[in-house]
């Protein structure tokens, strides 16, 4: 789940997608690659302790296996340069013991930097979903991401419009395939940190429809 733009809801959509797929009986891993502002653990309401057994074991929440920078950083800020991010992505992919998965959802941070390049390099089969919101500011930036993915020859599934308000609009993003919209959900903030509440939210309802068509 990528966007180029911050604050469009990638972490929420990644986390709720992971919960949905797990509730359908799939084996799901969730990798939070936002090292500067990891949020997935907050959305799912879990801590992520350091658990070691011939590698690092992901935390398990509601059947989802979660890995992020949190076991390494705790509450400390992460002041890293680009090459540190690249190295850390490689190391996390090498040492995390996911065991067998049907899906690995990767929550990408904003930007079109190392994280995008390293995912292309190390997980070339990865399929990208772009997340955009109705704002002109988001559409501009995410349009750049879409063009970047095309230049990189990445597998691009299409885009989701998050925090949708005008349900009759026809979102357009650099000609990309529109996967569906997720309505603005005033009840979402209350559900943050509570997987059961998240699964009952409007966000989950809309994402379920999107995933149903993707999984066919």
């Amino acid at each position, binding site marked *: 789940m990528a966007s180029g733009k911050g604050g469009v809801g990638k972490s929420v959509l990644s986390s709720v997608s992971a919960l949905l797929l797990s509730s359908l009986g799939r084996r799901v891993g969730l990798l939070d690659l936002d090292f500067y502002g990891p949020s997935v653990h907050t959305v799912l309401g879990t801590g992520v302790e*350091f658990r*070691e057994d*011939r*590698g*690092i074991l992901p935390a398990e929440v509601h059947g989802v296996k979660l890995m992020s920078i949190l*076991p*390494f*950083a705790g509450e*400390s*800020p*992460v*002041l*890293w*340069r680009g*090459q*540190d991010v690249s*190295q*850390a992505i490689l*190391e*996390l992919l*090498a*040492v995390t013991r996911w065991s067998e998965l049907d899906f690995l959802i990767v929550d990408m941070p904003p930007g079109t930097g190392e994280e995008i390049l390293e995912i292309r390099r190390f997980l070339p089969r990865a399929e990208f979903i772009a997340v955009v919101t109705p704002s002109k500011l988001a559409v501009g930036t995410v349009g750049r991401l879409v063009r970047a993915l095309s230049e990189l020859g990445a597998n691009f599934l299409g885009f989701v419009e998050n925090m949708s308000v005008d349900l009759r609009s026809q979102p357009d993003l650099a000609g990309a395939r529109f996967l569906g919209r997720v309505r603005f959900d005033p009840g979402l903030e209350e559900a943050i940190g509570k997987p059961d509440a998240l699964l009952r939210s409007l966000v989950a309802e809309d994402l379920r429809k999107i995933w149903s068509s993707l999984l066919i």
Partner: protein
Amino acid sequence: MHEWALAEGVVGSVLGAAGGRRVAAVRLRLGELQQIDVEVLRFAIGELSRGTAAEGMEVEVQTEPAEFECTSCGNRWNPLGTKIDGDIMELIHFLPESSKIHMRCPRCGSSDFRISGGRGLWIESILIRE
């Protein structure tokens, strides 16, 4: 400790490079920051190469000392020369970049340093058996 995972990587890479030919020896460079037990690594390589073209190959391991270089003040130091909290060492051996989160340049206090030595496991060369 993940000596077995690394050994698997070594044997796979050696066999790939050898392209079917028998391997007499491999020279490895092992960074100190990884805190790998060399004897366990050797044993694991030996076990995992059984029945392959790398069976019985001699394993030479050179240790590369850990070194950090501060981008702010230019200071270079070996972080393992000082006493580091065991929990932090655990984090560093999996993710050497965690050192930048938990440690500071002893001269100027900056966290903006680079890992100039002592990370990773490198295959320097292999010797093919004629």
